[in-house]
Structures are given as structure tokens and as C-alpha cells.
């Protein structure tokens, strides 16, 4: 036992942090995608609602009710050859104010030849003074496909709160056929309220979002542009390196969600999870 009160407090803090991990893989069996190995621990759980088609749906549930400073969560999903899996979350992920260490959230998605992964969680809400480091690593075989969306809301906007301080580091790495095709790290820290007000950052917007579609090319982007001549917030589309991207920025989370749904609806051959249609 250490006598130093500061380190004792740190130990207590550490012992109270939530840990959670979900790891599973899915396989194609007789034309249906089935769950294979599943590992769950801590406050992160996964539910598999009854199948609606040949693919498998998985829904993450954070029984801790949100993410606090020092928490560590990990998600690993591997989709076997030809399988199809749609991953979503039961609720918006709330990241609470964190006085000390940032929370860490690591997401790793792997898709083998011909597999399809849809990663469509509900939005992440960063409370004022939230601190989180997130990693999203995606490794796709050359013939695998992906539909991904992520929405981040700065503050509990429904309560009139805006994020003023904190730390948000979001590291994305997308590999396709072993080659790094997209990398990005979003880093917002310090005077986040002041930064978000800058025209080149968010011009005071409350929410941002990104969709990635693999494979994706100029023809897909053109098709989406033709079907969606207008958006509620700001939106931009592009395709390069074999994938397509849509980016959004809006004054309120509802507009951003509506714009995201419209693009996903255009880009996806399969129906979106029911949660998205509420």
C-alpha cells in the first residue's frame, strides 16, 4: 500500500473507471451470416436482434450509461468471407465531463473477401469538458465493402449546453487490400468553444458528421448529388482512392442526422437499421 495520498486517490479513481470490451467474429454458414466467437466483458455488451435478412445485426449497449474520464472501451469485429454484419448502438453515446485522464475508445473492424460491414452507431454527444481519445481502425480486404457513419455533437445541445473546453482526439485509419487509403486525426482541445466559432472550423455549428462508403467512386458521388440537390446543413461529397466520403456540419444535431440519413439511404443497397428510422 502506498502512503502518498495523491497516488492513493489516483488508485481509487483508477479502480472506479469503467472497462468494457466486445469482441466477436461472424461467418457465412449456409448463406446466412452467423455469430461465431463472442467475448464480452465489463459494461459493454452486444445484442443480436432477430435477423431480418441474410445479414446479421448487432447492437452495442453500454450498461455504464455513458463514458467518463479514464474509462476504457474496446470493440473488435471481424467479418468472415462473404458475411454481412450491421453494427449499431442502442443509444447515443454520452461522453461526460472528465476532470482527469481522457477516456479511451478503440474500435477495430476487419472484413475478409466479399464481406460487408455497416457501422452505423447513433451519435456521440460530448458534454462540456469531456475528454476522449478514440481510434477507429478498419482493415478491409480488397473485395470487402463498408458503410460507415459517425456523428459528433458538441455539448448537450438539447439543454442549451455547448462544449467549451475538453479534449477530443479521433484517429481514423482505413486500409483496403493492405494499403492505407484514408487517415485522419481530428484534434480539438483547449478553448474548444472559441475554436468551434472559427469559420474554418465550425462557424459555431453544433454537430459534425462523416460517412465513408467503400467501394466508392465518382459515379456514386454523382448519383448522390443528383438525388439530393439540397441539404438542411452543410454537406460535401468526394471520392478518391477507391472510397467515397460525405461530410456534414450543422447548427443542430437533428438537421445533421437528417442529412446523414439521406446520404446513407442513397448509398446503401440494404435498409438502414430501424433505430435510424425513428
Amino acid at each position, binding site marked *: 500500500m502506498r502512503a502518498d495520498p495523491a497516488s492513493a486517490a489516483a488508485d481509487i479513481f483508477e479502480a472506479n473507471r469503467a472497462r468494457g470490451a466486445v469482441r466477436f467474429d461472424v461467418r457465412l454458414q449456409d448463406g446466412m451470416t452467423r455469430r461465431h466467437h463472442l467475448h464480452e466483458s465489463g459494461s459493454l455488451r452486444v445484442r443480436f436482434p432477430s435477423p431480418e435478412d441474410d445479414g446479421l445485426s448487432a447492437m452495442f449497449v453500454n450498461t455504464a450509461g455513458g463514458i467518463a474520464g479514464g474509462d476504457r472501451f474496446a470493440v473488435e469485429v471481424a467479418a468472415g468471407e462473404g458475411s454481412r454484419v450491421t453494427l449499431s448502438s442502442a443509444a447515443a453515446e454520452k461522453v461526460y465531463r472528465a476532470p482527469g485522464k481522457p477516456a479511451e475508445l478503440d474500435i477495430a473492424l476487419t472484413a475478409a473477401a466479399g464481406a460487408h460491414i455497416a457501422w452505423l452507431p447513433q451519435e456521440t454527444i460530448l458534454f462540456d469538458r469531456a475528454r476522449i481519445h478514440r481510434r477507429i481502425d478498419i482493415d478491409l480486404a480488397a473485395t470487402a465493402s463498408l458503410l460507415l457513419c459517425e456523428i459528433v455533437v458538441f455539448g448537450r445541445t438539447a439543454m442549451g449546453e455547448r462544449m467549451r473546453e475538453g479534449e477530443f*482526439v479521433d484517429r481514423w*485509419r*482505413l486500409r483496403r487490400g493492405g494499403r*492505407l*487509403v*484514408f*487517415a*485522419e*486525426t*481530428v*484534434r*480539438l482541445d483547449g478553448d474548444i468553444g472559441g*475554436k468551434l466559432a*472559427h*469559420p*474554418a*472550423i*465550425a*462557424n459555431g*455549428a453544433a454537430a*459534425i458528421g462523416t460517412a465513408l462508403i467503400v467501394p466508392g467512386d465518382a459515379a456514386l458521388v454523382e448519383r448522390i*448529388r443528383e438525388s439530393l440537390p439540397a441539404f438542411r446543413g*452543410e*454537406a*460535401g*461529397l*468526394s*471520392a*478518391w*482512392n477507391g472510397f467515397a*466520403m460525405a*461530410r456534414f*456540419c450543422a447548427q443542430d444535431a437533428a438537421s445533421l442526422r437528417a442529412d446523414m440519413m439521406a446520404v446513407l439511404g442513397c448509398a446503401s443497397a440494404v435498409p438502414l437499421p430501424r433505430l435510424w428510422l425513428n
Partner: protein
Amino acid sequence: MTASERPHVSAAMTELDHPALYRLMTWLSPAFPVGGFAYSSGIEWAVEAGDVDDAASLRGWLSTMLTDGSGFCDAVFLVHAHRAMELGDIDRLREVAELAAAFVPSRERQLETTAQGRAFIEIARSAWNSPGLDDAVSQCEAMVYPVAVGVVGAAHGIQSSLLLHAYLHAVTSNWISAGSRLIPLGQTDSQRVLAALEPVVTATAVRAISASLDDIGSATFRADLASLRHETQYTRLFRS
């Protein structure tokens, strides 16, 4: 401030540095044919959308791009490419080059940095070749602009902080040139913006010199959006 109050300037610049200065002024001059004049990094859309419409708003937009956007990220890539080249660590160089090439927010920004990087390397190999340059180039799939500058600079033994300042000056000047043609802005106002951004460039370079690849990060969501929306801009002078 008089020159005599800044002794570190004269002390730092020895005769040994003169070839370095000559090369830096050449490679990072607007006359060096990498084609920078054809790109605006999305500023053309920002002007179209009304986000940038005078010297003050241009300065604000560029200050953010330097501090929290591609300016800082590319500066870190340049430093790490330079370091890997200096150490002869080709595996590390490949890793930096791969990450930098993937670290672009849109098709047009990819074209911008890839085309300039390729041109920079080609001209350097033709007119300013240096031992080790051909080998390093053959080992990397692609070298985007900041990586190309870092590699060539290291091959010529140029100190990375000087190289980085010259690079950030070139990029900032090119942004101002694009902005001033689009707004439009007079030559004196353009120079005022460049002067006002000097401390921002210095601070960005200082942060980048000591940053790890893990420290890279940007937050310029709307500047990135501008480069996406530029693709469908009706009348365009620039390729990005």
C-alpha cells in the same frame, strides 16, 4: 527593431548556410515550377460562400488552416520525412510517406499535394540531384508535397527548421495569392496578411518540430468541407 538588436540572426547565418539559403529560396519560390498557382486548398469555395471576403477574414481563415489544419499536419510530415531521410531509415520514410499520402480530406486536395510532390521530386532530380535521393524516391509509392520537400531538403543537408519555415512561407504565400485574386485584394493588403501571419507560421513550425506523428491532428471541418464543395463550384479558376 534594428538589426543590431537581433544578434542571433547574424550569428546563426554563417557562410556555410549560404548554399542552403540559395536552394531554399529557389525551391520554395513561386517561380519553382510545381504548379502551386493552380490550387487554392478550398479557398475558392470559402470566397464563393462568403466566409472569406476581405483581408481580415482571409487572415483568420489561413491562421486556422495553419494552426489547426493542413498547415500543422503537413509541417509534421515534413519534419518526420526529413528526419527519416537524414537517418537513412527507409522503412520509417515509407511509413511517413504512406500516412501523409492518406492524410488528405478530399479528391482535389489529394491532387494538389500529390501533383506538387511529384513535380518537386522530378525537378529536384533533374536540376538539384543529391546522393540518396533516387534511392529514397524509388522506395516510396508516392511522396506528397511536404514529404517531397523534407526528403530533398535532407538529401541536401538543409536543417529542418529552416526548411520548414521556407515551406510554410511558400504554402501561406500561395494561399494568400489565391485569396487575393479571388476576393480581390490589393498587393499591399496581401503583404499585410503575410506579415500578420508570421507569428502564426513561427508558432506552427515550433510545435511541428517537436511533434510526434501521433500528435498530428486537425479540426478545420469547414475548410475541409470547402475543398469538398469546390468540386461542384460552377465557375472555377483553381483546381482545388
